[in-house]
């Protein structure tokens, strides 16, 4: 019974977990600028994330260690510190973007600007981490996150031409604006395949004491949960493609993005969009702050569990406190969350190999996984997609920044 509940909750987490400021913004931008043409990028990102989450759950269930712990064990502190620093810096940028996303949503509701909301939002996230435990945080974020199903309802109401949609599932070259097209493809991949998700998922598996009997549950949670989440991101892209694209609206700010929901839901569209974004970004912000704490704690051998009281794990709780406080600073001085999102998603894609190569080495190490090491298919899929993401990033980021295409 416990497993059934865990699987159910895991599925819901997947739905809410995929959608956050990165995937919503990049999907909306892609739909507005290129119609259905970039759906393939979301599907590719989804496929890669499914494989990586399955691996990280399997790793922890079999080895009883988190991925971060094993990275230090296996590669030593020197290399570990490079991976830790690289991933932490990029993920910190994503945290700024998520907190900004909640603040943007509240701005629509209240009229008060992002700088005013940044601190209360971060404080509430901190309070939940300080007083709550992992289960509470995951369940709260995932059950409230069900509201994002409104994007699927929006697609249903807009009655898309499914032929055009399915042709977007196959990569094709754009007729114009090539640099922007590839940059968006990279950002979508970066938004889908965040390394912190691997670390968070594996930390969760250890906190919930998974063993090899959870391998089946793991497959269902990582596979179906992620697929549901990704399909909701596809729904966001489709709504933008059907509402914004024909009118030639390019998404540059949050208000434009929210407009896309007013056609399927004339009265509630903007509110639904704002609430969806606020909840998913808030959940993601808590997960990221926790992930960074886990990364330091597990890597340096501190007691690090979200279950204990803060004073018993002072170093662990200090990290998320400082990180959350630090992430509000840029927002307080007026940095634009949408800009941070765009930059951090592209950077995530560019730095993917840094996180994924050592992860794959672990996944093929029988010292940890015995007879449950990776098969040929999972190795190939993850290597190929992360290589594509990284190469595209190296080409597309300079093109986007310096113009051209």
């Amino acid at each position, binding site marked *: 019974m416990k497993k059934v509940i865990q699987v159910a909750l895991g599925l819901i987490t997947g739905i809410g977990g995929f959608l956050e400021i990165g995937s919503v913004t990049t999907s909306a931008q892609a739909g507005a600028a290129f119609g259905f043409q970039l759906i393939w990028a979301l599907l590719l990102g989804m496929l890669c994330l499914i494989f990586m989450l399955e691996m990280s759950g399997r790793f922890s269930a079999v080895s009883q260690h988190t991925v971060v712990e094993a990275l230090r064990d296996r590669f*030593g502190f020197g290399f570990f510190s490079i991976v830790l620093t690289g991933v932490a810096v990029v993920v910190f940028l994503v945290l700024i973007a998520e907190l900004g996303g909640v603040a943007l949503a509240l701005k629509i509701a209240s009229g008060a600007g992002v700088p005013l909301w940044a601190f209360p939002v971060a404080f509430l996230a901190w309070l939940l981490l300080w007083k709550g435990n992992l289960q509470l945080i995951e369940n709260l974020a995932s059950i409230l996150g069900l509201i994002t199903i409104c994007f699927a309802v929006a697609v249903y109401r807009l009655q898309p031409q499914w032929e055009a949609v399915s042709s977007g599932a196959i990569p094709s070259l754009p007729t114009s604006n090539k640099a922007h097209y590839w940059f968006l493809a990279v950002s979508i991949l970066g938004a889908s395949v965040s390394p912190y998700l691997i670390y968070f998922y594996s930390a969760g598996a250890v906190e919930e004491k998974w063993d090899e009997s959870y391998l089946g549950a793991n497959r269902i949670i990582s596979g179906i949960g992620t697929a549901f989440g990704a399909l909701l991101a596809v729904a966001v892209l489709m709504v933008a493609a059907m509402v914004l694209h024909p009118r030639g609206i390019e998404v540059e700010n949050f208000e434009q993005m929210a407009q896309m929901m007013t056609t399927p839901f004339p009265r509630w569209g903007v509110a639904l969009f704002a609430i969806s974004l606020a909840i998913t970004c808030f959940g993601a912000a808590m997960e990221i702050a926790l992930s960074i704490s886990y990364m330091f704690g597990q890597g340096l*051998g501190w007691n690090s569990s979200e279950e204990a*009281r*803060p004073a018993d794990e002072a170093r662990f709780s200090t990290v998320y406190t400082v990180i959350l406080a630090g992430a509000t600073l840029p927002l307080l001085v007026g940095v634009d969350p949408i800009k941070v999102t765009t930059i951090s998603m592209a950077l995530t894609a560019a730095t993917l190999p840094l996180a994924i190569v050592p992860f794959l080495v672990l996944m093929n190490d029988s010292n940890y996984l015995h007879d449950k090491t990776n098969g040929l298919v999972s190795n190939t899929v993850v290597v190929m997609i992360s290589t594509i993401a990284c190469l595209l990033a190296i080409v597309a980021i300079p093109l986007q920044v310096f113009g051209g295409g």
Partner: protein
Amino acid sequence: MNIVRDVLDKKLIDCENREVGRVDGALLEFANGSQPKMVQLEIGGEILAARVGTWLVPLVRWLASAWGPRRERIVAISWSHVTRVEKDLHLDIRADDTQALAWEHWLSEKFVSRIPGGK
């Protein structure tokens, strides 16, 4: 036993199943005419810094003197306390009997416990 593979960077677990820290360094003794002998395991930011680059050591040393708990610069745990070498190293002492948790206690006392709900 392979020191780099089986000992270095492994997690140290005390006799009450609490985490002590990680093996940041290990000290070997080379006596004349005998096999090298493992003397102690070491924990400390300074050792970690040295493993990344020696240029970092003065910085860490300065930070530690300006801030944080007063403790030995390097926490040493005698090899004789190691009872089992598995994925983690198990010790027969309590973490609190060493100075490994000095930072934890210091932060807890000076910062975390003073925030409502911390305790």
